């Protein structure tokens, strides 16, 4: 009786040990997964650093400079054949930015129309990630200082430089929900040092909404919207009239070092404070402008090379 018990126990032990041994051997790969879990950062939530007009959660990597040419043609529907669908009355913006760090981007730009020069800072505070560090969204700050350089009116009044200034402050909260769908919400404050009418607010609050649906690895449909609350106003024939909210819809096409963004928008202005709060155009009345952004990046400082081990 005793002998059989021992034998059974012995067999059990052997099976147990041998079993665990073979399991472990066949599963070397699984073993590699053990130990420290790594953090996987989400990348390319959007293709460009702008969705269309709205800043996206993206910024170029450290040491990378970016040149963007932005065009907004005249109205598609206003005297379309005479102006070739607005081609003759295009507004243009040129901008150059540089990422000092992976999380810190600075830039300068110049937009036609109100002849605005601007400088900005864009900083990533949190980056969406999974794994060891789980962060559901990316959070960025974007702030720009804008100088309207149109000549002061010859009205006999004394004008100061400060009147030319306007400021934009935004918090960008974005998430890549899946490989094909990304979205962001952008609480926004725009402040103008001068107003054009007595009723017009100096400070306008807004909520930007932007999104992207990827069709293929290189083509995506994008849209952005700026909801003003309350809406900025201007005088039309002596009547205080609200501006419209900006809405744009477009296509991103990526080829190597370029991103082409083609879009339709009701904002002809490209300068931050103006497209956000001074969009007279109305989609439903045919005030639709065709535009494009083309970006090109330059690696000015190469990333640190991972060297082959010395042995």
């Amino acid at each position: 009786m005793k002998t059989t018990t021992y034998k059974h126990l012995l067999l059990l032990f052997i099976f147990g040990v041998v079993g665990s041994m073979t399991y472990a051997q066949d599963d070397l790969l699984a073993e590699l997964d053990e130990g420290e879990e790594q953090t996987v950062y989400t990348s390319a939530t959007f293709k460009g650093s702008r969705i269309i007009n709205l800043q996206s959660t993206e910024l170029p990597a450290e040491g990378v400079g970016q040149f963007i040419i932005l065009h907004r043609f005249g109205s598609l529907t206003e005297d379309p054949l005479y102006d070739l669908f607005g081609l003759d009355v295009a507004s243009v913006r040129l901008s150059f930015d540089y990422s000092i760090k992976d999380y810190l981007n600075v830039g300068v730009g110049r937009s036609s129309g109100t002849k605005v020069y601007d400088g900005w800072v864009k900083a990533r505070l949190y980056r969406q990630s999974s794994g060891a560090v789980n962060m559901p969204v990316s959070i960025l700050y974007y702030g720009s200082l804008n100088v309207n350089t149109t000549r002061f009116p010859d009205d006999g009044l004394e004008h100061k430089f400060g009147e030319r200034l306007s400021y934009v402050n935004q918090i960008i909260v974005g998430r890549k929900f899946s490989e094909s769908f990304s979205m962001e919400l952008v609480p926004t404050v725009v402040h103008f040092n001068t107003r054009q009418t007595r009723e017009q607010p100096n400070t306008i609050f807004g909520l930007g909404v932007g999104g992207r649906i990827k069709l293929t690895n290189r083509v995506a449909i994008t849209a952005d919207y700026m909801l003003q609350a309350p809406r900025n106003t201007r005088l039309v024939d002596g009547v205080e009239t609200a501006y419209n909210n900006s809405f744009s819809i477009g296509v991103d096409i990526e080829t190597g070092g370029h991103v082409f963004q083609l879009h339709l928008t009701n904002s002809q202005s490209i300068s931050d404070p103006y497209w956000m709060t001074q969009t007279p155009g109305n989609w439903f009345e045919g005030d639709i402008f065709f535009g494009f952004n083309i970006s090109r990046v330059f690696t000015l400082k190469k990333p640190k090379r991972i060297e082959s081990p010395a042995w």
Partner: protein
Amino acid sequence: MKPFKFLLALLLIGFASTQVSAQRMMTREGYIKFFSSTAVEDIEAASNQASSVLEKNTGKIAFQVLMTSFSFEKALMQEHFNENYVESETYPKATFAGQIEDLSKVDFETEGTYNVTIKGTLTVHGVAQERTVSATIKVEGENVLLETVFKVKPADHDIEIPSVVRDNIARELEVTVKAKYAPLNR
């Protein structure tokens, strides 16, 4: 008498199983580089975060590396690599699981360099391919150094190269692997 035999057996088994784990060698800092050379440009990317286990007694070997750990000369290349080519979000890792075919040639107790053949399954972009590669194993003190260079065709792993950059990316990439294993203690 019987209990003695039993105890002896237990001891032997216990000893054998500790032996097995002492046969395990590991690294989490393996170096993997791939290199593409065309008339237009040379592109190189490397990672020093590959993890690998080598089992001395069985010759079993396994590698894995996060695709996002590869660093390129240009950040945009890295983004395109992850986003458009290997689709890292869907297929985060590349793995290799195989076996040293001629393990008998290697004496892990004696310092020296041994040329071996490793046969196994390379999985990149979710596509598994059977591969046989030649490698050099160097025994150095308690460490084991492994080095191998082999070619991989992106097309074999269903990695599509669009026509605009077809002249910039080689049909066949050269992959270099260097791993310095230390005994795994636990």
